[in-house]
């Protein structure tokens, strides 16, 4: 009782008033939908009868779903590792040139394009025409200068189509990684680098022994952000192949179950699984971010 009064005296009600509206919107637009989705995921097609874990069973046994899960894994590994390492490399290299701003702007530019537009652009890049007909797609047009050229149907050939899609994702997101990592790089005190140079460290040693360790938290934050983004990947696949020929991913599958097959239960179950997969990454991300803030 006494405690309550003292909180009031400290003006404890005021923060609640401020937070109240935010909390209200969070509850209505975030917490309630999450709980409702979780609830629907245990119900049947039209959310009338209780079906237990059927929807979850379907996700882990249906061939299309399992294929989608595998593809998400492929995206996870390739997309995350390549965007982050390219980001580091570009950040470090551009740090040493006079036209840094221009170079980074070029690489960041794709971020300004919506993913749907980027996907449409890349569909033209990957355009396939049979051999003997002029190639209008840039990728095949470049290849056509090689001896023994055979046009590649980038989005159709199952050996390359997943990589083609991942490539588009990388093209879009590398700029984001570069900008954040570059900011992290600038945070390394010049004195340390100078000291190391005076002690006779080569640039190579400088990179591995000082720059990378000091950028560790930034890299982790960027990497976890990329993981979250890649788990949700949808636009690129939806626009370019719609999951045909072994390119399906879970988010696209969720969309199909929901809007085309009207399978509300299954779609919700996929959403729940996606959420569960993202939560731990999110937790790591937030913790690292706090660490980074604390260092500053």
């Amino acid at each position, binding site marked *: 009782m006494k405690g309550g009064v003292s909180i009031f005296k400290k003006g404890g009600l005021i923060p609640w008033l*401020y*937070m109240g*509206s*935010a909390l209200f*919107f969070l509850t209505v637009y975030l917490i309630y939908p999450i709980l409702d989705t979780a609830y629907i995921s245990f119900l049947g097609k*039209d959310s009338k009868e209780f079906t237990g874990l059927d929807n979850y069973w379907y996700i882990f046994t249906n*061939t299309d779903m399992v294929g989608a899960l595998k593809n998400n894994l492929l995206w996870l590994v390739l997309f995350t590792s390549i965007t982050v390492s390219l980001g580091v490399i570009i950040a470090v290299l551009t740090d040493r040139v006079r036209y840094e701003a221009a170079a980074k702007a070029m690489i960041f530019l794709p971020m300004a394009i919506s993913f749907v537009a980027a996907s449409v652009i890349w569909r033209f890049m990957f*355009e*396939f*025409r*049979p051999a003997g*007909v002029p190639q209008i797609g840039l990728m095949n047009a470049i290849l056509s200068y090689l001896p023994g050229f055979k046009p590649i*149907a980038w*989005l*159709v*050939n*199952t050996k390359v189509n997943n990589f083609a899609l991942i490539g588009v994702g990388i093209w879009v997101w590398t700029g984001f990684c570069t900008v954040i990592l570059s900011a992290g790089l600038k945070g390394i005190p010049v004195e340390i680098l100078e000291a190391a140079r005076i002690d006779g460290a080569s640039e190579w040693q400088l990179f591995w022994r000082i720059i990378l360790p000091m950028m560790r938290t930034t890299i982790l934050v960027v990497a976890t952000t990329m993981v979250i983004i890649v788990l949700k990947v949808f636009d690129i696949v*939806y*626009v370019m*192949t*719609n999951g*045909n*020929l072994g390119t399906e991913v879970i988010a696209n599958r969720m*969309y*199909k179950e*929901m*809007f*085309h*097959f*009207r*399978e509300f239960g299954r779609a919700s179950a996929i959403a729940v699984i996606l959420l569960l997969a993202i939560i731990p990454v999110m937790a790591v991300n937030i913790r690292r971010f706090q660490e980074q803030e604390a260092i500053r």
Partner: protein
Amino acid sequence: MRTGLGITLVTLLTLCGFVATPLPAAQADVVDVLGLWSGGELRDFQDVVSPWEQKTGHTMAFVSTRDLNAVLTTRLEAGDPPEVAILPNPGFMHELAEGGKLVAVDTILGMNRIKRDYTRAWLELGSYQGKLHAIFYKASSKGTIWYSPKNFKTKGYSLPKTWKEMMALSDAIVSQGGTPFVIGAESGAATGWPLTDWIEIILLNQAGPEIYDKWVDHEISWTAPAIRRAFETLGRIVHTRKYVYGGSAGVLATNFINGTYVLYTTPPGAYMNYLGGFAQGFIKKQYPNLRPGEDYAFFPFPIIEPRYAGGVTGGADVIVLTKDTPGARSFIQYLSTATAQEIWAKKGGFIASNKSVKLDAYPDAIAQQMALQLANAKIFRFDGSDLMPAKVNDSFWKATVEYVNNPAGLDKILQSVEEVATEAYEK
């Protein structure tokens, strides 16, 4: 400070949201229509609707989307349906009718006139539990193989009447260094549908209408020999070397609209293109100088099994009422009349479902020929995949794509469609 800003922003956004929310139609005179049409098609449709707008004082607000199922599902679930939706397939219409989302139109339209104006096949397709729930509008024949009479004449080729003749012609074309077919199966999110059209017309002409109906209703399995044979018959074209433009990869990577252009390049990229009657629209738009009947034309799908000669498949857009308002009633009533359908028929790219539309309403010989093909078909069946549940349709699209890519996997591919179908038809 930041929190304050946040709250202000949220409040502002909320306010905007409330303001932007459309008020429920207090007056019934704006009919909200959801459909796939855009560009030229939408302009044509607007011209059809204008006389109605002038006469009744109502107006149409057309919302165009490429992802109709998703948008309509969302709006229905949100309790904010449009008044009228124009669906691309009756399968979806039946799903909506089952879910109780549609308004029956039999009393609205008056069945006496409707029975006079429409053939029984259309009415049966548009009925759910004995009540008419839909009007079929923009019909198209899918029994058309497009070719260039000029190219055929130069090379001395004659039109094949049977499947065998068509294969012999193809061999002749290949031996002279040409490519017999172009098949464009790419269609964004719906990739594969042009191939399902192939399978459907092959099945109808090879196994007959009875098997076809059973297949549509899933009374026979997808692994049945007849279905398998239809796939393999298509395989005879897509998997024979030099038979298709770009080989099997070309089939999957060529867009269905771009595919129609290939016949008219010099030298021709290919000689034959099987695609529905709507292909005429694409050809006309890309090559406005080509003369119908001389530079481009079609011949009917060849006979495979003499017993089932003349089997034609076709499709049509389906107009349904999702909300019962006076404006919407008057709108669908108007569209079902011959007058309304003639306006579009005159512009081309449109075959009327209303049989009272006169033949001379069509602008050229090709359009007339297509209207006749539909009206006089010995065996007519609606596009099968359009009648199936969305899930099965999607799986069918996918199966044809997989088959083109991997002919050896046919058994497994059909098995997987069968699994989806078993589940979908269960209820």
